[in-house]
């Protein structure tokens, strides 16, 4: 097969590309340029957007003996991932830009261009497994290494795109194994630190980034009874479940810490309350994408953040909407579910699909 290996400049994508070469594919390395001005995104070695990363990607391609190109996807990236990030925060929701990048860039703009140029598949360094069924259709599964599993951010891709994707690192037992393999192959990125932050927030200061792009929008912080307990400079700087940095003048009546319960974009209010009030057991979501559209109610496990713990649930599917009810009791409830988050449904290790959270509530009475 002709395989396009997306090379970020990091260790995972380099080893993934090497494995694709070993498998006998005709591999071409492509580094995505996602920023127009090369210093806009962070310049350290932690991300996928710096000149140093482009150089590391190029060096990895040299070592593997494959051609290397840089594709400028900065315009699409700005128009989809960054624009979505800003508008979602502005609307009081909590977006996951990595999910949006996989949805609009890696497995859309990049994949479409690759296919148009004659490639059969795109290979990335994501940790997830693809299981091919007897009939040739594919299933997306969690990676062998639960700590590195990235199936959550890939769940948005849908079956057609999965059919053209390769994740050679899905069965790697641990990141250390990947690093050792990189070192053994002479890939100089073997010891490069992992990236965790949002790649287009140069200094890791998301609040500062939002403030610079969205401006100051002062409003009230209220408790769940509607009483004003503080002020904020922009509701976008708050995330459901957040505890730190609230700077409330008055302590709660019960003396316990308070958390952000919700953002109310219409009246620009941030609602805070106790940890207990954060717990929900029903989550509604829309814009569902399925690998196989479920019929009727489905017993499954759900996850609402990239490194969250999956919890047992029953899902009711209605067109592109889905509502999940947790089945494990409130003790297993989800804490701090924000609109905009990605809700991913699993059957065991198999990804069923994903949807975008619209609301969450508590059906069961608190104990």
């Amino acid at each position, binding site marked *: 097969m002709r395989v396009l290996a997306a090379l970020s400049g990091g260790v995972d994508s380099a080893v993934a590309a090497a494995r694709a070469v070993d498998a006998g594919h005709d591999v071409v390395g492509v580094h995505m340029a996602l920023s127009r001005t*090369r210093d806009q995104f962070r310049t350290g070695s932690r991300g996928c957007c710096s000149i140093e990363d482009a150089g590391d990607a190029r060096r990895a391609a040299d070592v593997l003996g494959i051609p290397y190109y840089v594709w400028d996807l900065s315009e699409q990236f700005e128009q989809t991932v960054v624009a979505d990030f800003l508008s979602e925060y502005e609307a009081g929701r909590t977006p996951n830009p990595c999910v949006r990048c996989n949805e609009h860039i890696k497995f859309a703009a990049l994949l479409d261009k690759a*296919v148009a140029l004659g490639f059969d598949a795109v290979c990335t360094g994501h940790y997830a497994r693809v299981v091919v069924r007897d009939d040739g259709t594919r299933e997306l599964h969690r990676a062998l290494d639960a700590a590195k599993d990235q199936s959550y951010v890939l769940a948005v891709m849908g079956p057609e795109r999965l059919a053209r994707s390769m994740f050679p690192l899905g069965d790697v037992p641990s990141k250390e194994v990947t690093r050792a393999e990189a070192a053994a192959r002479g890939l100089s990125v073997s010891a490069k630190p992992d990236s965790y932050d949002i790649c287009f927030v140069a200094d890791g200061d998301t609040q500062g980034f939002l403030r610079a792009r969205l401006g100051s929008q002062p409003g009230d912080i209220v408790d769940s009874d509607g009483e004003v307990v503080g002020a904020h400079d922009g509701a976008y700087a708050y995330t459901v479940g957040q505890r730190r940095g609230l700077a409330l003048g008055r302590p709660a009546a019960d003396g316990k810490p308070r958390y952000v319960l919700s953002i109310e974009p219409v009246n620009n209010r941030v609602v805070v309350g106790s940890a207990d009030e954060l717990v929900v057991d029903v989550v509604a979501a829309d814009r569902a994408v399925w690998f196989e559209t479920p019929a009727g109610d489905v017993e499954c496990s759900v996850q609402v953040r990239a490194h969250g713990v999956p919890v047992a649930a029953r899902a009711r599917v209605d067109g592109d909407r889905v509502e999940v009810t947790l089945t494990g009791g409130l003790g297993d409830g989800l804490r701090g579910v924000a609109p905009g988050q990605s809700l991913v449904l699993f059957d065991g290790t198999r990804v069923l699909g994903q949807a975008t959270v619209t609301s969450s509530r508590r059906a069961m009475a608190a104990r």
Partner: protein
Amino acid sequence: MTVYLDHAATTPMLPGAVLALTDEMARTGNPSSLHGSGRAARRVVEESRESLAAALGARPSDVLWTSGGTEADNLAVKGLFWARRREDPSRLRILVSAVEHHAVLDPAFWMAEHTGAELVLLPVDSDGVLDVDALRDELDRHGEQAALLSVMWANNEVGALQPLDEVVSLARRHGVPVHADAVQAVGQVPVDFAASGLDAMTVSGHKLGGPGGTGALLARRGLDLMPVQHGGGQERGVRSGTLDAALLASFAAAVDEAVAARPVVAPRIAALRDELVAGVLAAVPDAELRGPVDTTRRLPFNAHFTFPGCEGDSLLYLLDSAGIEASTGSACQAGVPRPSHVLLAMGVDEHDARGALRFSLGHTSSADDVAALVATLPAVVDRARAAGLAGVR
């Protein structure tokens, strides 16, 4: 088989240059040393200087060796500016054509940003040829403040030969020194430094069949140049750094061979180029030839097109995977393709400029190369166009 159509990026070394390099490189001797080994090395350096000067219509004393075209351009822009400003602090304007190579443009921008220079970008017409009226107007109005003028002999992307005769005579009237980057011109068109009336001119080794890491700034005697690189005082104190006798012997041999062979090679390659242009336009009817259509106003080894709806990097990839090596013609930043400043200055819109490809021939080019390109190109363009559309959805 690889079809190499990127000679303007670099061209295979000429046999005489390889021989000169290998003959010389095993010998020890710093040309600045006074002992026998040093004297032998110095002799090679000076003979190379004489040879290069003779081939280019210059005097040996005009030749300042550098590490390449970029260094020579930097020395010309910065050295001339500083020297002129020392003499007359009101001369702050640096005049350069908008289609200069980055090796001229970037130092000029840098000087504007860091040393108080005023940068004047001179416009070009839709063929990429300097607008002489705009230059005349600029000099009539601000000639007294002009520190220097830099206009390339021929453009590296679209091959446009520049009207240096008019440039030099206009500048002379206002006492403004003129530098020309002639990196692409030597070996393709007649280049005579003395006859050109230029004050300074850049030459590069590897563009004409010499080794990489070699170049020269020809600077006429009496031209005041402030050094950019300080040290041991080599090259009249203008350009310090130990000279490499083997590299310079090879460089001089290449210039000699390229210039001597030009009357035979250039018409042969020009005919191939004409075939390439006709073949490409026939195979891809909506391709647009960029740069002068009149072949007497264009470098004989150069062809440059834009392919509507295509991305240059897609074209490059598809051609590369078919064994054909070309270039988008423009400089990249960290490998990121950007629309060419040359095409933009010519009035090409940004979208069309993204679909640019330069095919540059050279002394090893053959009719088979052209035939292979013309046979491959239609399918490549179709596919790149489909990919271009995929990218904009």
